[in-house]
């Protein structure tokens, strides 16, 4: 694995790429949970790792927060105890109460982790990681196991917590929506190297394609109105209405799965067969 990158403090960096590309390993090396054979890690002018000069600050002293993929809540402790465990003696205990409240966990403070849902466990993990008020929060696919609604709620919680106290975030994710919603910067890793880094728009948006819009869906009903067809279609989990040219009549029939291309002033259906001749209407 060979990686070399720098990014601004107090921003959110999304680390993405195919599985096995080394994203989690990189995150663990930044945290001090794994050591690369050679390299340097510098955060806010603090040397955390410099193998050439035998500098290796242990994970305990790097003042980071880490949210694990499996949340890693301590099963023997309640929600409150999980947070209190993280509280250094020098910190004020009001912080624990405040984080519980912000994360909507006050009611659940006396529960054990196994009595919580996935989303609740994730909120505890996030709150616990912030008890030490770290300058850097590392998150390994934190929202991957949650349903879409819960993902949104937790992303909002992360943004809310960052508004209260800015900190830097490095987040491993595969979710394009998450990258655009959260990240200031995105870095793509492939085969242990960093292939691209930049803002999500810089990295992903290909200007030459922007004239074309592609819609995937399934036709539910269709109605001919002069030169156009009025179709009700199932698109992205909702019923939507589409107006399309009448010449597509043979390809757009109830039950047909379609890929519609809008572009160059024309509408096309691609990759679909015409209506089967035996179809019974």
């Amino acid at each position, binding site marked *: 694995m060979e990686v070399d990158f720098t990014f601004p403090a107090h921003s959110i960096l999304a680390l993405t790429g195919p599985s096995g590309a080394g994203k989690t390993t990189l995150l663990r090396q930044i*945290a*001090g*949970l794994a050591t690369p054979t050679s390299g340097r890690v510098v955060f806010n002018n603090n040397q955390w790792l410099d193998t050439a000069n035998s500098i290796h600050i*242990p*994970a*305990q*002293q*790097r*003042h*980071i*927060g*880490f949210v*694990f*993929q*499996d949340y*890693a809540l*301590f*099963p*023997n402790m309640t929600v409150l105890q999980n947070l209190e*465990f*993280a509280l*250094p003696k020098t910190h004020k205990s009001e912080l624990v109460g405040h984080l519980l409240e912000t994360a909507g966990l006050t009611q659940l403070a006396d529960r054990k982790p*196994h*009595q*919580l849902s996935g989303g609740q466990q994730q909120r505890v993990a996030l709150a*616990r*990681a912030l*008890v*030490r008020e770290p300058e850097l929060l590392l998150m390994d696919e934190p929202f991957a196991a949650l349903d879409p609604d819960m993902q949104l709620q937790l992303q909002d919680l992360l943004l809310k917590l960052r508004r209260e106290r800015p900190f830097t975030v490095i987040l491993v994710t595969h979710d394009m929506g998450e990258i655009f919603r959260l990240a200031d910067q995105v870095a793509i890793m492939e085969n242990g190297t960093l292939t691209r880094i930049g803002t999500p728009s810089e990295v992903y948006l290909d200007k030459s394609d922007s004239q074309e819009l592609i819609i995937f869906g399934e036709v539910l009903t269709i109605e001919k109105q002069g030169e156009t067809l009025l179709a009700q279609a199932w698109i992205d989990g909702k019923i939507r209405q589409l107006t399309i040219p009448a010449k597509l009549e043979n390809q757009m029939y109830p039950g047909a799965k379609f890929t519609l291309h809008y572009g160059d002033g024309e509408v096309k259906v691609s990759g679909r067969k015409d209506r089967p001749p035996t179809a019974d209407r």
Partner: protein
Amino acid sequence: MTIHGYSIIHSFTHSIIQSFNHSKLDPAPLLLTFKLAGITSVLLLVIALPIAYWLVFGKFKGRGVVEALIGMPLVLPPSVIGFYLLLAFSPSHWFGAMIEEYLGLRLVFSFPGLIIASILYSLPFMIYPIRAGLQSLPSSLREASYTLGKSEWQTFVQVLLPNCKPALLTAFVLTFAHTVGEFGVVLMIGGNIPGVTKVASVAIYNEVEALNYPAANAYAMVLFAITFIILLLVYSINNRLLRVRQPA
């Protein structure tokens, strides 16, 4: 416990008490057995915790050699261990001589000698379950504790140990029960000095040799009943602990 189980235990205790009355049985060997098992288990727990931790998380070569040595009591005849300990403990050997000179302890045919022998003999019964318990914990628990600024020691005491309670309980009780069941090693290095080294298993052997079957039966039944109840309790408690840990 069911009525049925209760009545079995009740008639068991009843017949034990009768045997004690009929044969004027000396309870000393039984008390000595449980004293030996208790002391051995407590000391071995303290010794085994760092060894098990080191086996699971330590970075060193030759782990296989250490593991093989710890496992030896599982496969060796107790008389082999007893024989070598007898040689090592004897005042004519440098080890026995050193212990006698610096600690004023004679380990041959003495209770402290039995404890040391039992610790060595039960080593795998304590270390293996604890090692398995530590290994079964997700590594993220340990790492999460480190990222929260906790030292290895704090992590071990506050996170790892409380989360492998079933393994600790199993290890402790297996060691206790195994020490209760010791015979060969005890006989080799302890002999059968009443009140000092004559434990119940040796007493049974003596009574059978003297054709005093009721007395042998009484000792045997007490050992049988108590070890059965202990194991029954451990497995019920462990099943309950494991059920609690399943996600809701």
